[in-house]
């Protein structure tokens, strides 16, 4: 329907299309595949004059290194804790706020929504200084709590925006029916809206999780020991004194990226819908 122009596609056009599609896939996945291959290669093979995509010999040394020498598992654990806590709080608070904005009689709801969204657009470096001083005076430096508090606020605007859009597609008659049965807003949210929004909540949660998992600057500023540093800080600090351990870095990259890539590939359709909703609507 949309592809009106492509109805009579000639053979040559088809070839062009596949070439273009192949170029996009190569562009998007190529560098990561090279990283994957690097992680299985000997340091010696990596500096040879002719690089090879197929690891030969195939080794797991770099993976052993990052866990046994560099204690990468601690960073991964920290990141899991912080990102999981952030995601659940984001979804809880975000769902409440999105429901209030989407359904309840609230004056200037679009003004409020705009205000919430605009918060996510200022340069984050502008808040890191005052937040550091505040966290320091509250004794929260180098804790999970401070990271979760910050990531929650950074993640909420997008979560609210995506959930707001989804909640508006749920027929309003459903909560009116529950209201007539005597349910208050909180019960309607929990018993009517949330069960109907599970797919959207899962993907929104995934988006929030990825954002928290990937955040670097605040983690760098607020944490200082391996007890609370997250994966990006760990990887950024992956340097040896005399040479760059590209193989180890590649192995760590694969460990932290592969789960995300698999999740994203699995949920791709919904993630794209959620992320592009703003562009389509207005």
């Amino acid at each position, binding site marked *: 329907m949309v592809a009106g*122009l492509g109805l009579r596609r000639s053979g040559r056009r088809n070839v062009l299309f596949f070439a273009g599609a192949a170029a996009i896939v190569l562009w998007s996945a190529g560098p990561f595949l090279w990283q994957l291959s690097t992680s299985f290669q000997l340091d010696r093979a990596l500096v040879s004059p002719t690089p090879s995509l197929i690891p030969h010999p195939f080794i797991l040394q770099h993976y052993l290194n990052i866990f046994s020498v560099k204690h990468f598992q601690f960073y991964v654990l920290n990141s899991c804790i912080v990102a999981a806590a952030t995601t659940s709080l984001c979804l809880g608070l975000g769902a409440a706020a999105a429901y209030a904005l989407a359904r309840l009689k609230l004056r200037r709801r679009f003004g409020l929504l705009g205000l919430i969204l605009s918060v996510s657009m200022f340069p984050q470096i502008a808040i890191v200084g005052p937040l*550091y001083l505040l966290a320091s005076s509250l004794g929260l430096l180098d804790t999970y709590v401070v990271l979760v508090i910050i990531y929650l606020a950074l993640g909420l605007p997008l979560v609210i925006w995506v959930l707001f859009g989804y909640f508006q597609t749920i027929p309003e008659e459903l909560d009116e*029916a529950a209201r007539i049965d005597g349910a208050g807003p909180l019960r309607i949210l929990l018993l009517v809206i949330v069960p109907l929004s599970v797919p959207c909540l899962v993907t929104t949660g995934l988006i929030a999780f990825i954002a928290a998992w990937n955040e*670097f600057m605040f983690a760098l500023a607020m944490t200082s020991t391996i007890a609370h540093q997250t994966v990006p800080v760990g990887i950024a600090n992956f340097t040896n004194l005399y040479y760059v351990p590209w193989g180890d870095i590649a192995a760590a990259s694969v460990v932290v990226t592969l789960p995300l890539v698999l999740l994203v590939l699995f949920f*791709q359709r919904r993630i794209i819908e959620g992320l592009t909703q703003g562009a389509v609507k207005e």
Partner: protein
Amino acid sequence: MSRVAAAGGAITRAPPAFAITRTRRIDWPPLLLLLPTAISLGSVCVYPILGGLWLSLHNTMLATRENRFVGWLNYRTLAADPDFWSAWRHTLEFTAVSTLAETVIGLGMALLLVEWFPGRGLVRAAMLIPWAMPTVVTSKMFGWLFDGQNGLVNWMLRSLHLIGGNIDWYGSPNTALGTIVIADVWKTAPFMALLLLAGLQTIPGSLLEAARIDGAGAWQAFWRVRLPMLTPILLIAAMFRALDAFRIFDLVYVLTGGGPADSTEVLSTLTYKTLFSALEFGYGSALATAMFATEAAIALCFGILIAHSLRRQER
């Protein structure tokens, strides 16, 4: 389904009772549901922004424990600070070039993907990989790809005889910022494409069909139908991209740390170093505020363009 309809009917029949319950429970539930969000955003975003403005009027230094009100002094220092203006210029250059490249490449990808072909879902899925990858990982990955000695890019260019010897991509002041632009374009162009694809898909097929019947080729259909229809979305997406590019931190900090010879120092990295290496919180806050002002100006420019294009579309 019929129960829903019945419930809907019941509501329309009994508006007075409903209006009464509304007025009795004045707006408390929505406000209570919004309260946690307000507290979160208020304490982590609004308060620090105001705090930063206040700090920027002080000579706060964590190292010397100084903390005196100095008025506009920091801003006067800043106006005469060559490091600031150099970082400001790098940031604007980076923002302009990467936003433009990402928009053009993203549009190209989107125009390809809007046509159906077998395996399109797979291509769209692959495009999410750069988006999902942590920026720090992207940084390290490009550090390896563009390595001055054993990097794959140097090897490929040498094999194609495009370059004679290795290029020290991010180790030389001439090419470092360009390398960072390439890494940023890699990471965000596919995402831009997905946004624009969503926009392209809202253009009714009948319009394109009409253009085709009038004898327009694909090229004309693009310039006459698709691009004008897409302009507002294109501008909105470019604005978000530009605002995001302007605050670039991770890529620079991890790949070059602002070097070599400050050639990639951008406002975020300069501010970060002023705050956390020099521990000059007063001056660092002035830098952040200047950055804020520039970002607001960028948003304003795009806002005017967007309003203009929307008005033209309505006509």
